[in-house]
């Protein structure tokens, strides 16, 4: 069975097959956004706009 068939076999009602991974990926996305924002915030403090 390929991965998709395995997933469907495990949960015949359908639905999301990798909820744990989804949470991890969302955590990664939030991490990315925060790090991105922090870097740009630091850059904005480097040169003052007068």
């Amino acid at each position: 069975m390929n991965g998709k068939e395995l997933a469907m076999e495990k949960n015949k009602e359908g639905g999301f097959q990798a909820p744990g991974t989804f949470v991890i990926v969302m955590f990664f996305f939030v991490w990315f956004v925060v790090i991105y924002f922090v870097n740009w915030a630091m850059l904005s403090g480097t040169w003052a706009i007068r």
Partner: protein
Amino acid sequence: MASITATQERNFRTCPVTSLKVHLPAQKLVIANAVAAVVFLMIGGILALLIALTRWEAVHLLPADLYYRFLTVHGTVMLVFWIVFFEVAGLYFGGAVLLNARLVKPGLGWLAFLLMMAGAVMTVATIFAGKADVMFTAYIPMEAHPAFYLGVILFAVGALLAVGLFMVTIVVAKMEKRFTGSVPLVTYGLVAAAVIAVFTLLSGAITFIPAFLWSIGVIEHFDPLTYRILFWGFGHPAQQINLAAMIAVWYALATLTTGAKPINEKLTRLAFLAYILFINLGSIHHLLVDPGLSTTNRIFNTSYFMYLAVLASMIHAFSIPAGIEVAQRAKGYSKGLFQWLVKAPWKEPGFSALVVSMVIFGFVGGTSGVIQGAAQINLIAHNTLRIPGHFHATVVAGTTLAFMGLAYYLIPLMTQKQLVGRKWASMQPYIYGGGMLLVALGMMWAGIQGVPRRTWDIAASGSTLGAPAYEGSGVTLAVMGVGAVIAVLGGAMFIAIAVSTLLFGKKQQA
């Protein structure tokens, strides 16, 4: 269908564990290239320790000339020789062994190996002799001895030959009906790496051949910006080869350790294709502070094209853990959100190498790369330790650790010997990964404090102008130094296990 002769069939053995039909000439080439890879990893690792203990200001181990010399060797050996030798071993494994096929013309494989070895030895010897203190990038107008450029050219020709042999092997395997349908996903990923390798190595040729001719006086002038554009046409795609190969290895390790399969293989294969199409255009992020290139050119390439390659990485970043989760849930580990992860085989070195490699590559290396690749951020990040911090998280904690994880399966399979030091192998990915995390974070934070890269003495002692204070860098460089000691210990463990298995491992039944 191409006919298979009886002589060709006699050159196989069947692995009792995997049932793979192993072509014996391919096996010898896999071992030879893997051994060469580990030798260069060892050289690069020893130098890594010496360099880190020099950048750690409180220790400041090496004198200036040796620092720049060893940094040149370290960069060249680690970014090119260790990784490409291992990848060539992987190509022969993925193109022949995984397909139950024969390696076409093994003699050419040995010629490729000899060219690569001769080139690598020539380059390293020239640098150690003090004739090429030019860093891995060898930016014109810094001039190295002609043997440096010639060595790199020879290595590239050998690697190109190996890549060609891999591709022909797959075509012949298909004609001989060694496999049906499409190639397995791992081999597909290696094909993507090989395609990128072709235009990478050709870019290398059009960079280093004129540089060689300039070093022997045939060409009078080689424009530095032209060199840099051509060099990064080789340099960054070379890292994308590593990326495609690493991701192929991730899928292999996920399957080997948990039985995982991608939940959407078509999308996964499309993601590999995206790497081929978009990465070269994104390579311009290495030239963001160079004069002579328009801002439009720089921002367009480092935005849209790089993001399409990053999108491919996002697909794999979801696909691999999702495949593991589905496989683990199918085994009954389906309580709550994370039982599948808690009950995963964390003591299995392939699994721990996979996870540590993915986490550090993604959370630290990948994010920092995308951020530093924006023109505005790059203006303050370029030439600081932030840049080595990024690529140590990707190439070292990511690719090198993934390759180490695969080696724990490849070595017993190819040598037919039981792994020596299995208990140490279980711990090694955590030690190596933990050390490299400290190295990457220490470097990045020091870079944020302004500490430059490729600089022996950041205090600029003896200069009349002095240097900035780089406040806090005493701590961050110490974090980097301590991390390097731990990581080198982890690297030494891997080399000890690999060498011990090769020399003293108990022979398994053929």
